[in-house]
């Protein structure tokens, strides 16, 4: 009965809302993260303090129709973000007579990722996995070292071009070069803006003790832009801190070593199988010996863990009321299916093993230094190639491996 009532109310809302309110394009505040921080610190920000965060963001980063970014003394923001491409990606959908497109983000991304890049677009709740929330600045498939290092432009561009098999993220290879570049810029913009918002939230709950305290003492409606900029100067190191890694990302790229001779030989596959099941690589713990991923594990990605505590699941309702999506358990990939979200070329699989998948339980492989002693049990790059060989063997011969006998004769016996 309750469901029916909810449905009826929803339908009515749909019809009413159909005519109004949804053409206003504004960045949504990160209410979920704010509530999480408030719950941690037991400080509740006043409406004025919350509005200050949004006003500061609007002053620095503009609106979905007119994006911009602040000029910083210590970080050349225009080397990170290209304003012209940003503006091509932003705003309403349209095009010029020569085919130059505008509103590329809204045309291609917003229905899933949302105007704010929060992964809560209109269709967001239906997707599995959910669309990425860019605001953490955390990306799963990168070529850069360290889970907190942002991807390079090339990483993002590659992902757009080839999509993510097995998910709702399509391949945009049919888009024009300029449109793809514009999307890369806009995703970076949303990530930086979202990270700055999170930092301002933390700054607020950490330092504002009274309801009258404010991050900056300015009137955003009346004061001149110069006065506001001067007042915000003390906060700009936050942006520098969060934007600099994007500037440094290309220097953090880890090149994939060339495939060794016989990297996909049956011997390599057999070695890979041993490593896969072994204690160091420890792949089988989650993926199972045969890579089917049917091992019982309960875990969540980092985006979900931010508002969902499996020990206290009822608490999630207050976050759902703020727009968070229902938590979904992580599902270990069935490697036999041969669907690799980050790419199925051997180099792609190598990178997934080397870097892990940031934001998920999939860790980076423990890699041995070149001068490490023989007693060091960590993996070498050759070991990683053996693992790649085994993983790709699983995906190409999954049915045979599932059969058991083939696995023992072809793979381990030779």
């Amino acid at each position, binding site marked *: 009965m309750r469901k029916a009532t909810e449905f009826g109310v929803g339908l009515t*809302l749909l019809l009413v809302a159909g005519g109004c309110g949804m*053409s206003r394009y504004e960045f949504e505040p990160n209410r979920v993260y704010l509530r999480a921080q408030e719950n941690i610190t037991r400080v509740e920000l006043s409406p004025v303090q919350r509005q200050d965060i949004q006003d500061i963001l609007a002053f620095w980063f503009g609106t979905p129709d007119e994006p911009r970014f602040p000029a910083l003394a210590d970080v050349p923001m225009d080397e990170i973000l290209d304003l012209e491409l940003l503006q091509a990606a932003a705003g309403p959908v349209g*095009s010029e007579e020569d085919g130059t*497109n505008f509103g590329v983000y*809204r045309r291609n991304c917003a229905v899933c990722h949302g105007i704010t890049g929060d992964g809560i677009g*209109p269709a967001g*709740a239906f997707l599995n996995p959910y669309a990425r929330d860019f605001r953490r600045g955390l990306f799963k498939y990168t070529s850069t070292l360290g889970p907190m290092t942002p991807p390079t432009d090339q990483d993002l561009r590659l992902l757009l071009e080839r999509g*993510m*098999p097995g998910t709702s993220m399509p391949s945009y290879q049919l888009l024009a070069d300029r449109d793809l570049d514009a999307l890369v810029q806009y995703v970076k913009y949303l990530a930086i803006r979202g990270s700055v918002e999170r930092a301002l939230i933390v700054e607020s709950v950490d330092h504002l003790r009274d309801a009258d305290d404010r991050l900056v003492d300015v009137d955003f409606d009346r004061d001149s832009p110069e006065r506001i900029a001067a007042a915000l100067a003390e906060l700009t190191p936050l942006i520098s801190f969060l934007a600099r890694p994007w500037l440094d990302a290309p220097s953090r790229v880890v090149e994939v070593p060339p495939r060794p001779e016989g990297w996909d030989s049956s011997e390599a596959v057999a070695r890979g199988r041993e490593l896969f099941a072994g204690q160091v690589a420890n792949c089988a713990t989650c993926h199972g010996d045969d890579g089917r991923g049917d091992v019982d594990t309960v875990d969540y990605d980092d985006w979900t863990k931010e508002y969902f505590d499996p020990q206290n699941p009822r608490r999630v309702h207050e976050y759902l009321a703020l727009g968070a999506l229902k938590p979904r358990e992580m599902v270990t990939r069935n490697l036999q*299916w041969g669907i690799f979200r980050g790419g199925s070329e051997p180099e792609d699989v190598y990178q997934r093993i080397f870097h892990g998948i940031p934001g998920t339980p999939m860790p980076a492989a423990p890699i041995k230094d070149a001068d490490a002693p023989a007693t060091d049990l960590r993996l070498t790059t050759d070991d990683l190639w053996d693992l790649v060989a085994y993983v790709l063997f699983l995906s190409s011969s999954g049915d045979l491996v599932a059969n058991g006998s083939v696995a023992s004769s072809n793979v381990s016996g030779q």
Partner: protein
Amino acid sequence: MSEKEPRVETGEVKPSIDGYRPWPHRWALLVAWTTFPLIWVGGLVTTYDAGMAVPDWPGTFGYNLFLYPWQTWLFGPWDLFLEHKHRLLASLVGFLTIGLVIVVYRQDQRPWMRHMAVVALIAVIAQGVLGGARVLLVERQLAMVHGSVGPAFFAYCVALCVVTSRWWYQRKAVTGDPNGFQRVSVLSVAFLAYIQLVLGALLRHVPEAASTMYFEVAVWTHLVGAGLLLSIASILAILMFRGPVGDSSFRWLSYVLFLLVCVQIAFGCATWVMKYHWPTFVVQSSITRIYALIEAQGMLQSTVATAHAANGSLLLGVAVMLAVRVLRVHGGGLETKEMAAVAASSG
């Protein structure tokens, strides 16, 4: 719509009417046949989000619509090609509708028929203005309304085809539907088919700033509507299969309707998978290997999504054709006045 004398299972066939003039029917057919491709092209405009490819209206980049250099739109960007073609085709439908009004006024003496022709003209103008307003106001929700009115106009054209046909004149009311079940079910199918089209338009034109609730309610209502439509279309087809129906065309039209509903559901499922990937309840199944990677705006994705929208209009058109015919046979009413009007025109 058939020009041949209908075979009758119950009821009577009226003797042929010498005063019947076929041109209104032929012209109505022409308008309907031109409107259907227009719906396809309109669907493609939505699929490719090309509605704003030409930022002005009623002109095209400052040119008169009909004087816009053909090389530019024929060999220009795909979005421009679609949008300008949509406008040209819409203009053609507009001119044909003006022609329909003239033909009906010259050849059809039924006052209500003349009113219907004028209403068609008003509707096609309103639809054009809606399309223009969507462009000038950059308002996505007007595109949704525009996308909902288009199929309604098409269905209206189909109704015009039926009421101008020789069949309409020759059929006599019979009492084969004492409980009104046929009337209720065909009207329900036509109504549901249209509601489904509106919901489909809501989903296809979903504002990017809409809430997940908006989208969820639209999706679930669309699914429930599809289930209802399938149920009623099935019952109708079974009913027509089992008993005397009043006119032989009811039977095959109900079969075609049922088939179109099945095809529409298949297109709907495919549209979802090609746009949003497999639904959650099968996402962990190996079936997802079949279509693992979506290609945005690829040929398959675009064709299936547009076919889903166009087939919805076709389904509505067939439902309306059946409904109007059933109402003619089982509804009674207009016959005496009509015959008098026809007799007057022929005399």
